[in-house]
């Protein structure tokens, strides 16, 4: 008996997604059980059935960071702080409540 991984496609053009796994002694059984579990309610338009032993499992999938390279990550930038500063700048310039929603009176970059 071997473990088989089943991937299913919900509709044509959609990506295949992992549906689950099943135990089967050979390809014919794996096919029949995959049909039974993932196909009999018309919930899949296509199935991929792969012996788990054929799946290349990547150990430690990250490239170990030795130096601090936070700047490579989007979460290194706090957009929240930037937005707050921008809003404050606009408010200070116009002085009016709600003016931040209107286009700036003059473009400081111009």
């Amino acid at each position: 008996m071997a473990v088989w991984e089943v991937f299913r496609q919900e509709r044509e053009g959609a990506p295949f997604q992992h549906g689950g796994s099943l135990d089967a002694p050979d390809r014919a059984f794996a096919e029949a059980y995959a049909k039974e579990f993932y196909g009999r309610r018309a919930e899949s338009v296509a199935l991929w059935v792969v012996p788990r032993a054929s799946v290349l499992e990547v150990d430690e999938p990250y490239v170990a960071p030795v130096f601090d390279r936070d700047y490579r990550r989007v979460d290194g930038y706090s957009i929240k702080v930037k937005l707050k500063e921008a809003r404050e700048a606009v408010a200070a310039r116009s002085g009016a409540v709600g003016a931040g929603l209107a286009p700036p009176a003059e473009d400081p970059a111009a």
Partner: protein
Amino acid sequence: MTTQAPPRVDLLLQLADDELVLGWRDSEWTGIAPFLEEDVAFSSIAQTEIGHARAFYELAAAELDTTADELAFDRRPEEYRCAPFVELNLVHDWARSVARRWLYETADALRIAALKASDWPELAGLAAKIEREEAYHALHAGMWHERLTRSPEKGRYADALDKLWPYALGLVEGDQRRLLCEAVGRAEVAAVERGTHVDEWPSLWDEMTMVRRTVPGGTW
């Protein structure tokens, strides 16, 4: 209810009773099949057979002015028209259960093919619908047959087929018997005919009809 139905209705009752009783017997494996995946698949097939039985009963019920439930559960044990083959209690004997599925599916395919040519449009249409579902049954039965035929315990499976063969022949009549012999590669023998019942039948009938008999006319 009459035991002497017109021939075309009697044929429907034979089909319906075969499917209901085999579905019932196969469902006895639910929870105890050899492994989980097979448990789900085997139970699902049992359920589908009972669904086919309902469709045949409904067609017959319209002819007899009754309901599918009454036909399925309110007849006397001797009124059932199923073949003794489907009544056999084979639970705990996987080789025989697989042998029965394979023999049954092979015979049923011949029967369904003939029904598709019926001059009764409703029956021909129903047969075509059922045939689409039977494709999975045939795939399942075929893979198990292959596996057990090649297994180290193939002697046990061969013995199961030998024991069940006279019963299986009783499923079909006339020319379909010859076709069944060809399909399974076996010689014709004296069949265990429809119209008789096996010793295990009364207790199965008792179990099947128990709830209906507890509350006659009850609906759920």
